[in-house]
């Protein structure tokens, strides 16, 4: 097929006039049965490089993709072009997936998107034996490499599969973000005489700015002004879930339509949020980096980071979504030197101790174990167990095998010793990448050039798209009107305690403030740990305001306070004062029936839940039946204690339990 013939077909099937030269190069290689690694920026048209050959090739094209949102987008797009495309993923029912498999077997599907994890599923591996496969695609191929910013163990399975494929079956791996190291790693893993095609990473229409600030207030005020005065919609990335909440409430207060988005959301809400963004229902989405790589909206006009990302790769990846239509988009990074502590803590606290690895290895050496068995046998919790098992699998010490219908980890005969030096190397790499990100902030050269060079594109070009190369620098100026608004907002904004569940009579409560962002936390700390005496009165006033805002209209029968672990009568005395002011009788009959450890020493909510489970009892339980209860505590962290008491009081027949606390902590969970 000549390029002219191909382009006629391209017009007819895809409504596109012509290929870029590199696209045509890739397509020719694939039609010859070769392997290609294609590194091109977001929006370049990587997908066309495999979608086009797939309509020519006789059999089916199997696309491994890690992102369900992206699969959905591409399948819908292909269907609208009349190309039979489907996906198999965990968001669809088993029945739906099976019917897709059946249609694929009958030859009715040209392009099939699947998640790499699907290789675990025997329905799929069995079906694959009868498919006529013409092309294999590995999307987001940087996930193959541990040196990339988003390594996924399931992608290792794809490599094993690709190694088994016969010569002559074309394979294409694509990514928008690979450093030279990742590029080499991916290419050597896929092997088979792979051709690497790397495009320019320059995005001329992105306008890069760095704004140095001294505190959160400056970020919030500047953002408020920006959103009120600029056209178009975009994304704001924050480092933590708590900040997505604060920012979205702040914008709500300014009447700017916005919504928050994080890994904590369920699938349906996520789909709805993605849809809303595309329909311009919001001025902005405030997100942790959970928004993933799958949003395909061409006219994102700004991407603003309120927290420094972990590395220039993360940053390039995240800003890549802006301005895919080629029109200008503002790319703004806020930087306050204190912000560095969040990614640092994430890098430092990444891995469990070597002793825990040994524990897990010993248990699996003894017998094959599932994840839950393993948690029980080792007394470790889910998060460390998952980190450990993933590392042990990566190092070829354990593997996952089916025993009957259930998956268990088994020890590999003759396995090597655990090599902890790899963890050190990864930590060192991450630290140096974070340093590079700080360099990006401080650089006086072209910011685009800086990012491109970091990602292996050192082409020499004149850049004029950042605040170092012609664009006017953004400076923070005072804005008394918005400052006043922010103060009002802070005074009127009380963090929500999200504790409701179907089985409990507990309702979402309220805190008077966040622990870390005001003088509230300091005051609590002085009283609790520095012999500072009773909680000061301003905490009482602030807590009463939070109460009036959230529960002002409700009647309560009784105030109960959470029994202390170590801080003596502080909470009790505080609750007595509240009781006096609110004229709600207080009960002191909720007691601890066993000793518990301080919640703050536990690292995860499983442990916290275990620590307080069945730890409370009420002296005269008959007095609880049908009562509306206001539950008082000082600091709300994971919520495990409050939820446990809620569960217990529900069982005693309470009608309603409303938690009220002085402060809610800000978790350091960078990625959640």
């Amino acid at each position, binding site marked *: 097929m000549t390029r002219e013939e191909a382009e006629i077909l391209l017009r007819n099937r895809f409504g596109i006039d012509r290929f870029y030269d590199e696209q045509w190069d890739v397509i020719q290689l694939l039609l010859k049965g070769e392997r290609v690694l294609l590194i091109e920026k977001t929006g370049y048209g990587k997908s066309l490089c495999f979608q086009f050959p797939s309509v020519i090739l006789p059999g089916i094209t199997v696309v491994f993709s890690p992102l369900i949102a992206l699969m959905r987008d591409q399948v819908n797009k292909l269907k609208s072009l009349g190309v039979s495309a489907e996906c198999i993923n965990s968001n669809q029912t088993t029945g739906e997936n099976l019917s897709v498999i059946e249609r694929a077997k009958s030859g009715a599907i040209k392009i099939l998107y699947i998640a790499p994890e699907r*290789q*675990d599923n*025997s329905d*799929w*591996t*069995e079906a*694959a*034996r*009868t*498919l*006529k*496969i013409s092309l294999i695609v590995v999307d987001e191929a940087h996930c193959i490499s541990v040196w990339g910013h988003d390594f996924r163990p399931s992608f290792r*399975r794809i490599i*094993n*599969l690709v*190694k*088994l*494929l*016969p*010569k*002559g*079956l074309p394979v294409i791996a694509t990514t928008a973000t690979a450093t030279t190291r990742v590029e080499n790693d991916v290419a050597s893993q896929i092997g088979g005489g792979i051709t690497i095609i790397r495009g320019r990473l320059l995005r001329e229409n992105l306008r890069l700015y760095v704004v140095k600030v001294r505190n959160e207030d400056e970020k919030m005020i500047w953002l408020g002004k920006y959103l009120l005065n600029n056209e178009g919609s975009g994304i704001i990335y924050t480092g933590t879930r708590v900040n997505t909440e604060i920012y979205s409430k702040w914008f709500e207060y300014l009447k700017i339509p916005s919504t928050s988005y994080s890994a904590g959301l369920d699938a349906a809400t996520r789909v709805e949020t993605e849809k809303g963004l595309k329909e311009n229902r919001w001025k902005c989405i405030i997100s942790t980096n959970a928004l993933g790589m799958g949003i395909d909206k061409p006219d994102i006009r700004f991407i603003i980071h309120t927290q420094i990302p972990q590395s220039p790769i993360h940053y390039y990846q995240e800003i890549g979504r802006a301005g895919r239509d080629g029109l200008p988009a503002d790319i703004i990074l806020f930087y306050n030197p204190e912000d560095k502590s969040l990614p640092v803590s994430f890098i430092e606290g990444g891995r469990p101790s070597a002793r825990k690895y040994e524990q897990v290895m010993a248990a699996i*050496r*003894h*017998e*094959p174990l599932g994840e839950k068995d393993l948690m029980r046998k080792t007394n470790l919790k889910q998060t460390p167990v998952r980190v450990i098992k993933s590392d042990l699998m990566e190092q070829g010490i354990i*593997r*996952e*095998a*089916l*025993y*009957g219908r259930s998956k268990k980890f*088994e*020890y*590999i*005969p*003759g396995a090597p010793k655990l090599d902890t030096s790899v963890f050190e190397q990864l930590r060192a790499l991450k630290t140096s990448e974070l340093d590079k990100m700080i360099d990006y902030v401080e650089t006086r050269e072209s910011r685009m050039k800086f990012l491109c060079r970091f990602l292996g594109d050192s082409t020499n070009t004149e850049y004029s798209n950042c605040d170092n190369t012609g664009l006017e620098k953004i400076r923070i100026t005072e804005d008394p009107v918005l400052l006043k608004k922010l103060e009002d907002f802070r005074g009127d904004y009380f963090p929500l305690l999200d504790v409701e569940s179907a089985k409990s009579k507990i309702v979402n409560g309220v805190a008077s403030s966040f622990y870390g962002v005001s003088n509230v936390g300091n005051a609590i700390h002085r009283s609790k740990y520095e012999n500072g005496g009773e909680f000061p009165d301003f905490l009482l006033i602030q807590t009463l305001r939070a109460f009036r805002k959230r529960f002002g209209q409700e009647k309560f029968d009784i105030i109960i306070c959470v029994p202390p672990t170590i801080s003596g009568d502080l909470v009790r005395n505080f609750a007595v004062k509240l009781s006096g002011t609110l004229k709600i009788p207080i009960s002191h009959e909720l007691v601890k029936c066993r000793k518990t450890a301080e919640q703050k020493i536990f690292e995860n909510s499983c442990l916290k839940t275990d620590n307080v489970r069945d730890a409370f009892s009420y002296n005269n339980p008959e007095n609880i039946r049908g009562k509306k209860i206001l539950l008082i505590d000082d600091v709300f962290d994971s919520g495990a204690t409050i939820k446990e008491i809620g569960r217990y009081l529900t069982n005693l027949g309470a009608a309603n339990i409303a938690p009220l606390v002085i402060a809610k902590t800000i978790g350091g969970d960078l990625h959640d």
Partner: protein
Amino acid sequence: MNKKSVWKSSFSFPKETGRIFFLMNDKEIEDLTSAKSEIANNSFLAESLFNQGYEVIPIISPEYSKTLKENLKTQYSPAVIYIKGNKQILSEKSIAIVGSRSASDISLEFTDNIARLASLDYKVVVSGFAKGIDKQALDSAIKYKGQSIIVLPQGILTFGTGFKTYYRQIVDGDVIVLSTFFPKAPWSTGLAMARNPIIYGLANEIYVAESSDSGGTWSGVKDGLRKNRIIYVRKPDANENNANQLLIDLGAKAVDFAGNIIQGTIGENKELTLF
């Protein structure tokens, strides 16, 4: 990864090369080409097998059991074997102890003793994993800290509970599980019969604890003798009701409780075993 090179080396050559160098006819080349086109499909199942620690060893691999290939000759050796466990075991000296599913105590004791001696001597015990003698041979080898090969009468993916039972031994590298059948094939009498020559083929020495005058052991030994294998049969007491003496008369070597050849008891067809 040698798995990859094995697939590749056998399948990537142009048609002309096939015709000239391998003297293949067009039909054979076509078969090979269609086999090649199926590799892509089978890759998905194969990856899933490999990921769980199963391995497929083709006959051209240096890891394929040399004993098996020598005993069965290339023509009758299975094209691939499926294994899980320490494949180093396949290159050790080995013995098989065979016999009926409902064996007498004396035969079981004999089996135990032979397995003990083999283990002491670092010889691997090949077991067909049937009731009676096979199972005793395996259990004894494990008891005496020897190594063993479990030869399955079924596909390797259908051995679920067995992998759990022998987990420690597999992890410690003392047991390898082997099958020559399609991985998902369930147990059947036919496969059990087809497995017998594999057991004999994997062993350097074959010991018969007890045989009746029909059934698997009987036909297996006769087949072995026909192929000029040396087969040691436990010399029965006069009052035993089995066909051991018949096999000795057919040319098998009589051995005592410790496996030593009992002189002067070589059967009528002694010329068969003298080579």
